[in-house]
């Protein structure tokens, strides 16, 4: 040990499905946090523990098959390993985790780690599963031939953790960097020439990657920095290598597998005939044309209905609870801005954030189960063809399906998509899927205009058609985005299908907790702030033209007799207040823009007020149409809308086209502050939520305009 107080930095690296997260959780327990690395959209966790009295910082790098970085995200991991990130010191030891059943494939990455110039410790995971398949590994021999310490572990049972910690300490102390396979002399010569051109700022490791990774991130970065001369030099060097029989990228694979294969053959004994595993048996059912499809439909139906049926009662309770709390605040305080801020701004705002929690927890519980047991990749395999038609891949299916319940968990679920452009495209179109917050708007207007006097199937068909708006527009927009803003080289769709296994309760609960915490703690604050701003725009000014406070006028009106007259007076004052509020003034100023949609300023203002959440339009319309306590009484608002519109020259005649125009607007618009904030969280940029808001609002406006204008022609 250099000093007893120095903290060791250890980087944990492994293939996806090597059990990396399980080992990370087992080593660091609950002492972990999400590291903040600017420019990375994937999350990297940091944990800490003490090994033999020495504090250790453990960094969990995203699962990867190699150090050939293709994106900024992958480059951050490589830079971190080379000590080129300002946030972290260069790792003292690299902990490489591999799957015992797939040793040769997983050791490919390990052999790249040997080139970093840092001590490497190898943890061979899931030895029980390998033993069950008759695979025996001589760990001492493996350690001697690879030249690094090797520790057999079972991360899910916590076996071998002490040995890992001891090996990490010893490696940090002795600190001899290992040596990996050597590449041909011709290759090393080209690297030396390139190194002179690049100078010493670029470590040799990256110069080798520059030459090996055609079109990789290192090439993009350095060519941009050094200009086209470097590009030409690279092309010539690669041609020379190809002429010498050492073409990239094959030269690296030949060197590494050529070095690894004999070692693995020496140290691993396998049965001559591969035994049939549980994964094989399960897979033969899941890939069956009939049974496999049936299981898939059942699983998806189960996930989807659970989000609705399990979450809805809890969400209703959350809503009712916060409404009751708001009422309590109103009863306990004197009228005034503070009371209104507390009741209508903060209490209802916090409720508006927490109401998403049940859906997020349930969806992420399911995602964790599906990923843990290996079905997630299978679902992506089944749906890939369908999703490829809109330029995406099978991995976008679950996020899109989830968005039919709610775009907030749907956007968060897009984390499973590694390809950056595909992930962005999925996130940007997910809010177009018809979510459950649109239902109150649809049921209000379909109930008011398309039920009485229509055939029994008309309301249902109208609802179905509105859902189809989202289902057809979302893929079209995705295709358009992939051909324009998110254009780029076709990503590689080769995907590993992990072995099926029983999910672990602890890791499922952990995923649910992480997702819930990320939403409430990080997105919640901004969502709440947005809600308070919209509240203020509707509250102020709180006195009429004569300087009399609305709250005083309401108090006076409430004392008049009989009760009906008091209620009518109160509702009239509330409506006047809304009209003259800042938001109402904006709505009235914008009326010319609403007229082509068949809307008056009241509908326009209610649409503006629904920026925090779509369903708010119902309550706001109720207030503007002088309905008492509109939050609960959908029917009362329906009657008020019908009554109010019947006396109007446009909406009296074109009630149905106007109702359709409002519904099409809400099918396509981005009136949901929570989704916008979550998009910002997931893309780490305000540009993408701004873009989403702009394109969806434009779509919604054009859609509503066409609907009303065509509807007017049909009715007229």
């Amino acid at each position: 040990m250099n000093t007893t107080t120095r903290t060791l930095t250890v980087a944990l690296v492994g293939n996806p499905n090597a059990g990396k997260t399980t080992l990370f959780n087992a080593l660091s327990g609950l002492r972990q946090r999400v590291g903040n690395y600017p420019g990375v959209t994937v999350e990297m966790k940091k944990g800490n523990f003490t090994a033999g009295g020495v504090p250790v910082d453990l960094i969990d790098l995203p699962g990867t098959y190699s150090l050939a970085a293709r994106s900024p995200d992958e480059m951050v991991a490589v830079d971190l390993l080379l000590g080129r990130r300002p946030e972290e010191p260069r790792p003292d030891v690299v902990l490489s985790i591999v799957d015992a059943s797939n040793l040769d494939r997983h050791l490919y990455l390990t052999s790249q780690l040997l080139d970093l110039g840092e001590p490497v410790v190898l943890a061979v995971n899931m030895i029980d599963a390998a033993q069950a398949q008759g695979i025996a590994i001589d760990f001492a021999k493996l350690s001697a031939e690879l030249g690094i310490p090797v520790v057999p572990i079972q991360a899910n049972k916590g076996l071998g953790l002490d040995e890992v910690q001891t090996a990490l300490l010893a490696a940090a102390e002795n600190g001899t960097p290992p040596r990996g396979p050597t590449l041909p002399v011709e290759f090393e010569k080209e690297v030396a020439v390139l190194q002179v051109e690049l100078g010493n700022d670029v470590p040799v490791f990256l110069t080798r990657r520059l030459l090996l990774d055609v079109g990789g991130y290192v090439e993009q970065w350095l060519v941009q920095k050094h200009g086209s001369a470097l590009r030409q030099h690279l092309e010539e060097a690669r041609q020379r290598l190809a002429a010498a029989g050492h073409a990239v990228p094959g030269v690296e694979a030949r060197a590494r597998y050529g070095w690894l294969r004999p070692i693995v053959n020496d140290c691993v004994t396998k049965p001559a005939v591969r035994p049939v595993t549980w994964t094989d048996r399960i897979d033969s059912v899941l890939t069956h044309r009939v049974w496999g499809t049936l299981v898939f439909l059942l699983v998806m139906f189960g996930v989807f209905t659970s989000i609705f049926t399990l979450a809805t009662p809890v969400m209703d309770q959350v809503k009712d609870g916060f409404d009751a709390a708001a009422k309590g605040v109103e009863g306990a305080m004197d009228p005034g801005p503070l009371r209104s801020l507390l009741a209508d701004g903060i209490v209802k705002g916090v409720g508006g954030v927490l109401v998403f929690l049940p859906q997020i927890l349930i969806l992420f519980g399911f995602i964790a189960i599906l990923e843990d047991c290996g079905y997630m990749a299978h679902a992506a395999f089944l749906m890939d063809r369908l999703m490829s038609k809109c330029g995406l891949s099978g991995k976008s299916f679950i996020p899109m399906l989830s968005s039919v319940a709610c775009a907030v968990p749907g956007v968060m679920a897009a984390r499973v998509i590694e390809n950056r452009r595909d992930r962005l495209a999925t996130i940007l179109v997910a809010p177009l899927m018809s979510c459950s917050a649109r239902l109150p708007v649809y049921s209000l207007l379909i109930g008011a205009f398309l039920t009485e006097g229509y055939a029994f199937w008309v309301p249902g068909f109208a609802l179905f058609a509105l859902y189809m708006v989202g289902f057809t527009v979302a893929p079209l927009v995705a295709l358009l985005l992939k051909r324009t803003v998110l254009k780029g080289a076709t990503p590689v769709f080769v995907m590993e299908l992990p072995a099926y296994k029983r999910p672990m309760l602890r890791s499922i609960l952990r995923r649910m907790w992480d997702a819930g915490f990320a939403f409430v703690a990080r997105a919640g604050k901004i969502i709440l702030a947005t809600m308070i701003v919209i509240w203020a725009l509707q509250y102020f000014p709180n006195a009429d033209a004569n300087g009399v406070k609305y709250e005083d006028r309401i108090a006076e009106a409430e004392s008049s007799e009989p009760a009906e007259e008091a209620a009518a007076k109160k509702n009239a004052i509330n409506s006047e207040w809304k009209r003259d509020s800042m938001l109402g003034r904006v709505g009235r100023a914008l009326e010319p823009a609403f007229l082509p949609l068949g809307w008056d300023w009241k509908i326009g203002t209610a649409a503006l007020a629904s920026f925090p959440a779509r369903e708010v339009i119902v309550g706001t319309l109720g207030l503007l149409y002088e309905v008492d306590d509109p939050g609960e009484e959908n029917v009362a608002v329906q009657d008020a809308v019908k009554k109010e519109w019947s006396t109007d020259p446009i909406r009296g005649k074109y009630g149905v086209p106007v109702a359709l125009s409002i519904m099409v607007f809400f099918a396509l618009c981005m009136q949901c502050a929570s989704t916008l904030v979550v998009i910002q969280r997931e893309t780490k940029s305000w540009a993408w939520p701004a873009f989403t808001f702009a394109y969806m609002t434009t779509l919604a406006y054009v859609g509503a305009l066409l609907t009303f204008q065509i509807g007017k022609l049909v009715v007229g």
Partner: protein
Amino acid sequence: MTTLDQLRPGQQGTVQALGGDPGLVQRLYELGLFEGESIEVLALAPLGDPIEIRVGNARLSLRKAEAAGIQVS
């Protein structure tokens, strides 16, 4: 000699050569698809694409367009 996308479920082969985009070839190497490695086609997705194959002890999904660059015998 044929290409991987031509194999039917249940058929086996040995990888002879990898072709296509260098990024794709590199990823195939990283996933253990290497000249001389034996592979087996396990299944075809119900919609006709992609295919599921076994390489070593791992199962991979790849699109037919990607499999078309892999020469097998």
